[in-house]
């Protein structure tokens, strides 16, 4: 049972933005939805997965974003409506395909939903997918509230089908992960029929082949499509203006910043002085609509995240329209009123607005702010990011770091994206020395592994997760094998796309819709590529370390699969393998000389320092019972016994 299917037409429901996107797609009659997990986008596919048995829809977690776009495009080519979702940098992954798709065009409505993460709350970049709309020359929409999130998806499908090209609908964390009221529309009946016509005239968009060639001609078609889109944008219900007819200033905004801007105008009480132009169709900007608003005043403040995208586009139009509307002052990020990096919030917007209007405004009394800062600085405990109790990654990195230090040749690990990204921090013993995109650890390692002739004789390691292995590490591994690079790739296999919430991947026997599917074996793949492959349980520190020691001394490409299911996985959650306790008779406490190895270095949240007794202690509420800490205590004071369920 899911509200997005059970909810009634004409009723209002409190929905998370990602649920609203899913509902919007269902109301639009989507047939195929594909994506790769990535915060803040993951719940869209998850919500559609949940209703995949009730609705005529195929839902897929693809191996990576590029493949998900191709899967969605195929559905579109066959006349179906297709949705493709990803986090911001997922667009980069598939952008090569998109560049060609933009030329070949689409048939059934194809809507791309990139969910951006301003402030990089769950990312290691602040990439902007809006740039891609301009780069690819396809229409871009940005919902400004939760109702629009849902309605715009349906509108985007209609537009896509009308112009025969994909349409971007960009969400952000504060829309995808926040909730608001949404009035439901109707769910269509019936299952769409798929057929791929390919034997018509080569240039026939509905019956010819789907191809970017002949490029110039197709590019010209694409521009025709954009023109049509702009015409629809001129009258789009998603571009709204509220405020006086002759305002002193117009705030131009989109997306979540619409909410911040509304709040800022209210807080300053300047509703009668300032207008708000909320744009839902942000690329290409509709010139007539813009001209109308440029004529209303001379000063504009653009409020958006992250880059000055609309600000620049608006400036281009203002320049072009200059002879008709006169000189306009357009403020925003480029002149420093708003920051070029990070998320915005109502405080930042209200400050910028007050500054532009020449008003004094303090979001909070000075003394209050100062006291708050003091309390945070002196009073709040330092809570840095950490692996969960029982996390296999902690054990894996303990071994990797130990081996590299013991090996003593200043070996290093190249990393990429997953929970294990945190191994750049003390929780992973600061083991990662390079950190980039999905699969990049192995690619970068492959390059390092060829630098021996230049004197680099440090052991080169890479880590990648099981999902990342299939996503983008495979080509890098192939590259390393083929080019005879000397690397050791450690696959941290926790049997799921753990960071984003256990979505399945090609290494597992279940698909997005809960169906049973064949698993692709990481071992078999690596072996068939010609790599030397070993597998170990990361919780067995001794075996893992000995195995890794041997591997890093061997030439060529070696793969060590460290397999241990994630502590938060549905299979493992709430199930302890061991009862773990510190024997206070054996723990030497402060006098041990280990300097609290367990709580200072190993630092599993399940281990705590009993200040009163000056000894270590296991927090049995938090302890996941993995038992690894029993192997690291030099005094042997941490004891584990097989966990027995109390009847």
């Amino acid at each position, binding site marked *: 049972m899911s509200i997005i299917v059970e909810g009634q037409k004409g009723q209002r429901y409190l929905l998370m933005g990602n649920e609203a996107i899913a509902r919007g797609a269902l109301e639009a009659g989507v047939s195929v939805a594909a994506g790769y997990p990535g915060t803040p986008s993951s719940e869209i596919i998850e919500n559609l997965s949940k209703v995949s048995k009730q609705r005529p829809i195929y839902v897929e977690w693809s191996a990576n974003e590029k493949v998900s776009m191709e899967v969605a495009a195929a559905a579109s080519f066959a006349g179906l409506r297709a949705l493709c979702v990803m986090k911001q940098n997922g667009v980069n992954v598939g952008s090569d395909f998109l560049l060609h798709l933009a030329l070949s065009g689409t048939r059934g409505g194809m809507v791309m939903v990139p969910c951006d993460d301003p402030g990089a709350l769950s990312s290691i970049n602040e990439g902007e997918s809006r740039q891609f709309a301009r780069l690819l020359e396809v229409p871009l929409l940005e919902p400004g509230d939760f109702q629009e999130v849902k309605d715009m998806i349906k509108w985007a499908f209609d537009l896509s089908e009308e112009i025969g090209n994909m349409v971007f609908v960009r969400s952000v964390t504060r829309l995808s992960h926040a909730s608001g009221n949404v009035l439901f529309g109707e769910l269509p009946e019936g299952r769409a029929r798929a057929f791929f016509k390919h034997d018509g005239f080569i240039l026939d968009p509905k019956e010819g082949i789907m191809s970017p060639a002949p490029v110039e001609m197709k590019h010209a078609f694409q521009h025709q499509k954009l023109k049509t889109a702009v015409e629809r944008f001129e009258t789009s219900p998603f571009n709204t203006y509220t405020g006086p007819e002759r305002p002193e200033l117009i705030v131009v905004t989109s997306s979540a910043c619409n909410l911040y801007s509304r709040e800022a105008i209210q807080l300053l009480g300047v509703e009668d002085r300032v207008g708000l132009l909320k744009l839902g169709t942000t690329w290409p900007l509709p010139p007539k609509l813009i001209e109308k608003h440029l004529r209303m005043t001379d000063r504009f403040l653009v409020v958006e995240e992250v880059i000055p995208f609309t600000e620049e586009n608006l400036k281009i139009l203002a320049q072009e329209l200059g002879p008709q509307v006169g000189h306009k002052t357009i403020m925003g990020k480029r002149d420093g009123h708003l920051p070029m990096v990070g998320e915005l919030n109502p405080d930042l917007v209200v400050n910028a607005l007050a500054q532009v209007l020449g008003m004094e405004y303090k979001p909070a009394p000075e003394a209050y702010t100062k006291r708050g800062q003091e309390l945070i600085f002196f009073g709040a405990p330092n809570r840095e990011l950490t692996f969960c109790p029982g996390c296999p990654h902690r054990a894996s990195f303990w071994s990797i*770091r*130990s081996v590299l*230090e*013991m*090996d*003593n040749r200043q070996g290093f690990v190249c990393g990429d994206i997953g929970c294990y990204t945190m191994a750049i921090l003390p929780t992973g*013993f600061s083991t990662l020395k390079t950190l980039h995109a999905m699969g990049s650890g192995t690619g970068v390692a492959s390059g390092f592994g060829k630098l021996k002739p230049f004197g680099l004789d440090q052991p080169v390691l890479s880590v990648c997760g099981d999902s990342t292995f299939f996503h983008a590490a495979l080509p890098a591994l192939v590259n390393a094998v083929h080019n005879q690079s000397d690397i050791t790739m450690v696959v941290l296999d926790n049997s799921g796309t753990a960071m984003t919430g256990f979505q399945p991947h090609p290494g597992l026997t279940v698909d997005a819709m809960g169906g049973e599917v064949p698993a692709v074996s990481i071992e078999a793949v690596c072996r068939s590529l010609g790599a030397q492959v070993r597998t170990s349980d990361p919780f067995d520190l001794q075996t893992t370390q000995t195995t890794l*020691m041997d591997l890093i001394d061997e030439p060529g490409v070696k793969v060590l699969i460290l397999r241990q299911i994630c502590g938060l996985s549905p299979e493992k959650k709430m199930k302890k393998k061991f009862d773990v306790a510190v024997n206070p008779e054996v723990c030497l406490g402060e006098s041990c*000389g*280990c*300097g609290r*190895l367990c709580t*200072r*270095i190993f630092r599993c949240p399940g281990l705590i320092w009993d200040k009163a007794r000056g000894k270590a202690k296991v927090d049995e509420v938090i302890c996941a019972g993995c038992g690894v800490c029993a192997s*690291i205590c*030099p005094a042997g004071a941490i004891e584990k016994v097989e966990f027995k369920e109390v009847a």
Partner: protein
Amino acid sequence: MQVFGPNELQEDVLKKGLCVGCGACVGLCPYFKTYKGKTAMLFPCTLTQGRCHAFCPKTEVDLEELAQRYWGKSYEGTPLGEHQEIVRARAGDRMGPGPYQAGGTVSALLAQAFKSGLVEAAVLTDRQELVPVPRLARSLEEAARCASSKYMAAPTLAAYNQALAEGLSRVGVVGTPCQVTALAQMRANPLQRDDFRDAAAMVIGLFCTWALDTRGLIRLLADRLDTGRIKKMDLPPPPSEIMVLETEDGRVEVPLSEIRPLVPAGCHICPDMTSEWADLSVGVVEGQPDWNTLIVRTRRGRDLVEQAKADGMLVTEPMPADNLANLNLAAGNKKKRAWARTREDGLLNSDGEGRRSAIRVPVRVVESIDS
């Protein structure tokens, strides 16, 4: 003696490449580990004073303090250190036929020590494939398997720490000068710990001009021969300029000029050729491949030698004067080179706020460098 902690040890020894991997710091805590001849600190430690630093033979070694403690007199920097007698020696008839390195004196002394009950275990250097590893041998048979020179930096003293942890109290130790220096510091209880025990019942030091980096030597040898088939390694005394490897496929010689670059930096600051802080020191004799030089330094050392002789385990003869002169010269030269290098690197008697030394010796000894 100034005692600091692991961070200073890391800074002054490990990072400067002065560590010779003796193993003195290994097995005391979870942080220092040894692998293929190198010692590493796995994770940061917060101790401001530690045994790791106090035991290390490459930082803050106060030779005056050691001389006062073990010899009851001031450190003079004589080439061969304090000793009672220097003889040539070899295994006696009661010992089996070997094979031994040179005259088999160390094997004979160990055999006597085990048989007489002087030691219950011995801290020795074994090897795994070519890599030297510490071995705590509990029997003569086990000890015999460790015979032969390794010529590579070895973490032998980790086995002494193991012996202490196991509660052993009569342990024989066979080590190189750096290991014997570290052991001398270990036996002095520098941190005044209550749980301290001196378990070294007999310390047999080996002569050493320098050792070789384990990985480097293995790499070099692997390029020339099947390292799995090496039976014995030898560095014949000067003027020979070769390393000799006896393998199952025959004899292979490697010129010393190719091997010298593999000498760890820590060896260049070592002033001790003959393991001056041992009970007995054993080396080769120039031109007499079947004999050893044996330096008797302590009372208990002398007792063991006398017993071994009486039991037919060891034979000694007076040392020829020429050989003695050459030994003096070689040991004196090693000292001079070490003082010069240490001083040049600012590691000799460096005083002042925050300054730390590798070696501290009385000023008059330093002055003798220039004379």
